[in-house]
């Protein structure tokens, strides 16, 4: 035994090293994905027997107005969240200087990302409060009537997205600040000697060097937009009348409050398939880089 071990340990050891991580990940992540897809073909209240109903949940889903509202809102999230990388870059360019105290300023700008989305949601719900919220005060000071953003069906999603952008911009800013730090000074100087400056310099010399930061910024922003749940749950519970729901919240509502696990699993599967496009893209890029 010990002889066998000595001879083969280089072959066996990596599998032992992998075992604990793989076991917990398989149990709590991989297997549940498969189970969720399986549950989506059933009618199930979470307690009793599951009844196989084939694709009926999906058929119902595509006829459900609430599904289309949630999906449309996810598209709004996705599109408007794409403002985070350019705004984050703008702030990073603004802060990328060497003046006294700038380190502290940079970290304070990053604050919104470190605090919980629950706190962000509470802060913004209060900001929008039509009676005493800061927005009402600001609007009042220029002679405008208060706007009840979170109870207005047309505005509510924009209001929540604005809250979400706050930490997301901070995240993108830090990615770009790190990227700006590792710019090649030679290239910048060479371009300066050639007379490049301002936006032309940014576009032709700086942005190409920031590609890795841009890539990560876009990936985390897309994932953040599609994962949006906390802010919706905290600020509106999907209301008024489901108008601010997103797929993640719609799924939670159907399974936890209406006990429709099969239907909820079908919504989750749709969201999962949408996200897979981005995950596949990320993995493809990563593996390509890996193979050099």
């Amino acid at each position, binding site marked *: 035994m010990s002889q066998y071990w000595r001879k083969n340990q280089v072959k066996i050891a990596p599998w032992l090293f992998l075992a*604990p991580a793989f076991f917990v990940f398989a149990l709590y992540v991989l297997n*549940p994905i498969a189970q969720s897809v399986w549950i989506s073909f059933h009618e199930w209240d979470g307690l009793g027997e599951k009844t196989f109903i084939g694709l009926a949940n999906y058929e119902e889903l595509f006829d459900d107005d609430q599904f289309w509202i949630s999906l449309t809102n996810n598209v709004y999230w996705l599109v408007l969240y794409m403002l985070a990388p350019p705004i984050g870059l703008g702030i990073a360019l603004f802060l990328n200087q060497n003046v006294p105290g700038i380190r502290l300023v940079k970290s304070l700008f990053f604050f919104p990302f470190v605090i919980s989305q*629950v706190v962000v949601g509470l802060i913004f719900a209060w900001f929008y409060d039509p009676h*005493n919220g800061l927005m009402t005060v600001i609007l009042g000071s220029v002679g405008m009537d208060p706007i009840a953003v979170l109870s207005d069906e047309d505005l509510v999603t924009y209001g929540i997205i604005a809250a979400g952008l706050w930490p997301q911009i901070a995240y993108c800013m830090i990615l770009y600040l*790190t990227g700006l730090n590792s710019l090649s000074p030679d290239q910048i100087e060479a371009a300066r000697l050639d007379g490049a400056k301002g936006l032309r310099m940014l576009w032709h010399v700086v942005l190409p060097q920031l590609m890795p930061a841009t890539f990560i910024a876009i990936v985390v922003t897309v994932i953040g937009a599609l994962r949006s749940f906390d802010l919706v749950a905290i600020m509106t519970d999907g209301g008024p009348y489901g108008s601010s729901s997103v797929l993640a919240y719609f799924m939670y509502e159907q399974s936890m409050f209406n006990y429709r696990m099969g239907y909820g699993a079908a919504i989750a599967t749709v969201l999962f398939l949408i996200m897979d496009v981005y995950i596949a893209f990320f993995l493809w890029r990563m593996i390509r880089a890996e193979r050099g």
Partner: protein
Amino acid sequence: MFPRPIEKAPAARQIAYKAALPIALIAWLLPLIAVMLTSARSIEDLNKGNYWGLPEKWMLIENYSEIFRVTPMATYMLNSIIITLPTVVVSVAFATMAGFALAKYNIRFRILLFAIFVGGNFIPFQILMIPVRTLTIDLGFYDTPWALIVFHTAFQTGFCTLFMRNFIAALPNELIEAARVEGVSEWKIFRHIIVPLVRPALAALAVLIFTFVWNDYFWSLVLVQSDEVRPITAGLNALKGQWLASWQLISAGSIIAALPPVALFFLMQRHFIAGLTLGATKG
């Protein structure tokens, strides 16, 4: 350096820049500053509608001691600590071993295995929700701290493995090969060569995972339900329901909930940022 250093600009622009910095900062953090001020307000202030000016009477100590006295804030806080610390330790430990295996051994399916850990990170939580909830109930963990500890550990292992594998892959092979020639066992190579070398990465990862788990809200809704086990995020939202008009208390609670990750971020800023870039850019 880009943009051009401000020191080389005319004096007027330098002054304008230095004046713009604090203004921009205050505007950016305005909602947060308002919450901080409100956490020190008196009820009379709020009743009068003084939400955005300076508090007339500073009630800082009163409000913060009140929230610990009249609400289960202390329990929530303790629960968050009980859930977060073991998760950080175990997921980082598992991932260091897995990262080593994926980085330094030429095993079959290594790219596939790595891709699974990485991909698993980005999936929506909802695809896991029903089966994980059922599994948690079956294991007898539902509404106990174990429900969240075990789940978070398993889930965060994915991100940690991505991180550790990239860090370990960049370490030189010579040390490992030399040790192997000397007949050092694989476990000892891991324990005495790899672990000391990855220490900086361990710190980065630990801060990041602490923040992720501390700030989690979704799973604290799905896997626990009673005040005795609720972490601070879910607790805070429960308080919002009960103390609707007491904004000074909700604000104080929000500040308390935000404090540990913020403090950790300040203490370990460099590590934190290195972690967030997923190793894509050098920090």
